[in-house]
């Protein structure tokens, strides 16, 4: 229980400085969970990340897996809440301010100006995620690259559900690596 409170306090602090999203503070999470507290080793940390990737939902749910490891279902809920509530309240405050300023010209321009930064960062996360995934394929990196490229093309060119590609990737992984 006290371990969970330590985790929650650490995550709540990271929540309000995690500009760019949860992945921006993944290194700090690693420091807390692996280096300082020793709750998991390196491989365990990487597997927790992969498990969260394989589950639907916002990527931030990886903290739920850390919480689960420390304190089961209660840990999963507590860690997610600690990571989401502080910054969520800030976002809610901002959204309220934005509503009062609705249509203000400077705000429209600020929002428009952030678009290219957002798109560059999304593209980079996709490539970095692909690189991380590559490592889990061992001697078959070309298969990983092919899956990533095929899925990117599928999503770009069609409006069909990407679930088909995710399921196909899972099936290939089970056949080739299982």
């Amino acid at each position, binding site marked *: 229980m006290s371990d969970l409170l330590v985790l929650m306090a650490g995550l709540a602090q990271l929540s309000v400085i995690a500009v760019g999203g949860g992945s921006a503070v993944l290194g700090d999470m690693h420091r807390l969970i692996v280096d300082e507290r020793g709750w998991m080793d390196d491989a365990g940390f990487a597997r927790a990340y*992969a498990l969260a990737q*394989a*589950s639907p939902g916002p990527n931030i749910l990886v903290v739920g897996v850390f919480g689960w490891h420390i304190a089961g279902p209660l840990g999963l809920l507590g860690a997610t809440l600690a990571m989401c509530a502080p910054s969520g309240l800030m976002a809610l405050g901002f959204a309220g301010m934005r509503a009062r300023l609705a249509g203000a010209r400077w705000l429209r321009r600020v929002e428009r100006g952030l678009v290219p930064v957002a798109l560059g960062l999304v593209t980079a996360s996709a490539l970095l995620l692909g690189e991380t995934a590559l490592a889990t394929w061992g001697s078959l990196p070309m298969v990983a690259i092919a899956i990533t490229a095929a899925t990117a093309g599928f999503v770009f060119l069609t409006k069909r559900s990407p679930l088909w590609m995710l399921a196909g990737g899972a099936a290939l992984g089970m056949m080739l690596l299982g």
Partner: protein
Amino acid sequence: MTPTATALFTAYFQVGISSFGGANAWARRMLVEKRGWLTDREFAERLGLGQVLPGPNAMNTAIIVGHGFCGVRGALAAVGGLFAGPLLILSALCLLYDRFGHLGVVRGALAGVASAAAGMMLGTAFKMIRGARPSAAMVVVGLAALGLALWRVPLPWIILALAPLGILAAWREAK
């Protein structure tokens, strides 16, 4: 077209339970392609704000989208819908992983999903770039963000350095 809080909850619930590999791609698909509540550019603007604010950006984006349509109720409905399903599914996956996580088949499936999820994010990014129709200056800012992030420069620094440039570009275009 303005959705109700209930419609927001339903839409975001569907986003939550289908959003393998991160929620932003699926949120865009739901809000822009399926429901037509936002244009590509409007979604990209909200995503940009969600990324600049601290905290999980899919959650921040849901709060901003929900609040924009239905105030605080809309924000709570969107976030509640987004997290409700995944929290349950993740609990079940953690239980299963504790028992079967050592099996090669499970690790292979995880590897396949991870590779496909990366492709999904990439394809979505291309779609948003196409929809945003950026000017030359905006393309430069976007490429700089991409390059710095790939170079592993910490995100807060990237945003501090490039957000002013993007805003400056938007300012000049508006004149």
